[in-house]
C-alpha cells in the first residue's frame, strides 16, 4: 500500500529554500497533472502543452495579452497580501474591483465629451476610492460588530455585481445602444494610453508595477509592514506590543480595496472603454490564487501573476485549437492552488510517511 499519511517534524526555523521552492514545485506538479489529463482526453501531451503554455506567448501580440491579463491580477493580489499577511481573509476583491470600475467608470461616463489630461487621473482616484469604500465595509463591520470578514466581503461581491447590473441596464444605459446592457463609451481622455501601437498592453501595467514596488517598500522597510507581519504571526504578541489592531484592519482593507478598485478601473478604461455586465473574468477570485502562489511577496506575486495569466491565454488557445472548453483554465488554477497548499507545510515541517492513522 502507498503511504499517503505523512508524519510531521517541526523545523527549528522556516526553511527559506522551501519557501522559494514550494511555488515552483506546485507549478511543476500542475503541469505534470495537466499532461495526464490531456493524455486521458486523447491528446498528445507535447502538442497539448505546447498549445497551452508556449503558443499563446510566441509572438509580441501574445506577450502583450499576457501582460494585459497579469496587470489586474498582480495589482489585486498585492493588495490582498496586506489583508492575508494580517490573517484577514478578504475574498471580496471581485466586488471591490467592480465598485472601483463603477466609481471610476461613472466619472468617465460623466466626462465622456470633455477632453483634458485630468480626466484619467480623476477616474483612477475614483476607482481607488470606490474600491476602498467597498473594502471598508467588511473592515468596519469586523471592528464594530465582530463579523466574519470572509462572509461579509463575499456577500458584498454579489451586491456590487447587482449594482453594476442595475446601472448598465438602468440609469447609465447607453441612450444610443439599442437594448444592449452597456453604457456609452468613455471619451479619448478617459482611456488608458496604450504603450505600443497596435498592442493592447496599456498604462495600467505601470500603475501595477508602482503599486507592487510601493507594497514591497511598505512590507520590508516600514513600521506598518512590520506591524502587519507581527500581527499575522501572533495576534497576542501584537497586542502586547501595543499595535492598534483596529487600525491595522482598516489599513489592510483600504489598501486591498483601493488596489482592486484601480484594477477594475484599469480594465474598463483600458481594454474595454465602457461599462457592461461582465467586466472581469473572475480576476478578483483568481487573484487570491496569485497572492498565495506568490507567497504574499510582491516580487513573487509578479511571477505568479504571469503564470496564472498564462492559464487564461492557454485556455483560450486550447478552446480554439483543441476544442476543449476554456474552463480548462479554471482546472489548472484550482490544481496549482491545491498543490501549493498541499506542499506548503514543507516550509515549516519535515515530512516522513507512515501507513497507519
Amino acid at each position, binding site marked *: 500500500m502507498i503511504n499517503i499519511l505523512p508524519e510531521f517534524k517541526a523545523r527549528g526555523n522556516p526553511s527559506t529554500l522551501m519557501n522559494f521552492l514550494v511555488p515552483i514545485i506546485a507549478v511543476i506538479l500542475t503541469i505534470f497533472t495537466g499532461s495526464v489529463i490531456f493524455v486521458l482526453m486523447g491528446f498528445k501531451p507535447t502538442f497539448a502543452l505546447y498549445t497551452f503554455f508556449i503558443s499563446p506567448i510566441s509572438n509580441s501580440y501574445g506577450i502583450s495579452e499576457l501582460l494585459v491579463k497579469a496587470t489586474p491580477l498582480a495589482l489585486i493580489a498585492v493588495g490582498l497580501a496586506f489583508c492575508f499577511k494580517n490573517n484577514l481573509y478578504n475574498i471580496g476583491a471581485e466586488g471591490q474591483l467592480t465598485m472601483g470600475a463603477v466609481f471610476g467608470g461613472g466619472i468617465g461616463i460623466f466626462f465622456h465629451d470633455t477632453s483634458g489630461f485630468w480626466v484619467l487621473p480623476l477616474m483612477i482616484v475614483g476607482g481607488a476610492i470606490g474600491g476602498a469604500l467597498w473594502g471598508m465595509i467588511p473592515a468596519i463591520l469586523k471592528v464594530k460588530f465582530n463579523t466574519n470578514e470572509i462572509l461579509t466581503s*463575499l456577500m458584498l461581491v454579489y451586491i456590487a455585481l447587482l449594482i453594476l447590473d442595475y446601472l448598465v441596464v438602468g440609469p447609465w444605459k447607453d441612450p444610443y445602444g439599442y437594448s444592449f446592457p452597456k453604457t456609452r463609451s468613455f471619451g479619448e481622455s478617459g482611456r488608458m494610453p496604450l504603450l505600443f501601437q497596435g498592442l493592447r498592453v496599456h498604462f495600467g501595467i505601470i500603475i501595477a508595477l508602482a503599486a507592487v514596488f510601493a507594497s514591497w517598500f511598505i512590507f520590508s522597510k516600514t513600521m506598518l509592514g512590520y506591524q502587519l507581519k507581527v500581527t499575522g504571526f501572533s495576534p497576542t504578541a501584537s497586542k502586547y506590543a501595543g499595535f492598534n489592531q483596529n487600525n491595522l484592519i482598516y489599513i489592510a482593507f483600504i489598501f486591498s480595496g483601493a488596489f482592486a478598485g484601480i484594477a477594475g478601473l484599469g480594465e474598463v478604461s483600458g481594454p474595454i472603454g465602457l461599462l457592461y455586465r461582465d467586466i472581469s473574468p473572475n480576476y478578483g477570485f483568481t487573484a487570491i490564487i496569485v497572492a498565495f502562489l506568490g507567497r504574499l511577496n510582491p516580487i513573487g506575486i509578479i511571477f505568479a501573476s504571469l503564470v496564472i495569466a498564462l492559464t487564461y491565454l492557454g485556455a483560450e488557445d486550447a478552446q480554439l485549437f483543441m476544442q476543449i472548453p476554456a474552463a480548462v483554465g479554471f482546472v489548472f488554477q484550482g490544481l496549482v*492552488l491545491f498543490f501549493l497548499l498541499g506542499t506548503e507545510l514543507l516550509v515549516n515541517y519535515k515530512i516522513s510517511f507512515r501507513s497507519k*492513522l
Partner: protein
Amino acid sequence: MNIDVLFGVIQIILIATTPLVFAAIGELVTEKTGVLNLGVEGMMLVGAVSAFVTLVITGSYILAFLVSILSGILMSGLFAYLVLILMSNQVATGLALTIFGIGLSSMIGKPYIGTPITGLNPYFFVILSFIIVFLVSYFFYKTKLGLIFRAVGESHDSSHALGYSVVKIRLLGILFGGSMCALAGSYMSICYAPMWQENMTAGRGWIALALVVFATWKPGRILIGAYIFGGVSILQMNLQAWGLNFPGQFFNMAPYLATMIVLIIISSNRLRIKLSAPASLTIPFFKGR
C-alpha cells in the same frame, strides 16, 4: 390573487428552495465538526454534471444519483486530505475546490449541453430535504455520536484528550457535506432544470454558506432561512411578471443583505456568537502540539 396562483407560487418556492436546503444542511454538518469548506459551489456543479452525464449514458436515475454522490465524496475527500492530513489553510483550499469544480464540470459537461432528458418529479426530493434536516437535528441533539461531533467542533484538543479521533470525525463531517452538495447539484440537473448548463448552480453554493451562518449553526433554522431566501427570489420574479416596475436587482440583493444583517446581529454580541459558532471553526488540528 386567487387561490390557484397562490398554490402555484408555493409549489415553485418548494421546488426552487430544495437545493439550497440540501447544500446548506451538508455544509452545516461539516462546519459543526469545526471545518469550513468554501467549495460548496464547486461540489454542487460536479455533482450536477456527473448525475446528468450518467443519466444520459446509462438511462438509470438511481445510478445517476449514486455516481453524483460518489463524485461529492471524491471532491470533498480531496479537500479533507488537504486540510486534515496536509494541514492546508481551509479558506484557500475551499476556494481552490470551487474554482477546480467550476472548470472540471464545464469540461466534462461540454458535449452534453442541450441534450434533452426526462426530468424527475421533484416532490420526492422536497420531502427528502425536510427529512434530512430532521434527521441531522435528531443526530446532533439526541444521539451520543452527535454530541461527539459537536464536541470536536467546539474543542478538538479536549475531544482528542478524551480519546476521540478528531481527524476521523472531521473526515465524516466533510464527506457528508460533499455528498449533500452533490445531491443538491444532481437535483438541479435532473429534477429542477432538467438539463446541463455551465455554471448552472449560479451562486447557490455561496448562498448555502451564508444560510449556515443565518441559521446560527442550528439545523432547523436552515429551513426557515432557505425558505425566506427562496420565497424572496420567487416573489421578485413574480412582481416583474405582474408588471411592478421595481428594479429586480434590488430584490436579488435581498438574500445577501439579509445575511449581512443577520451576521451583524449575531456577531455584535461576542458571547452570543461564541455560543453559536463552533469554537474550532477553521482552526487546524495538530496532533501532539
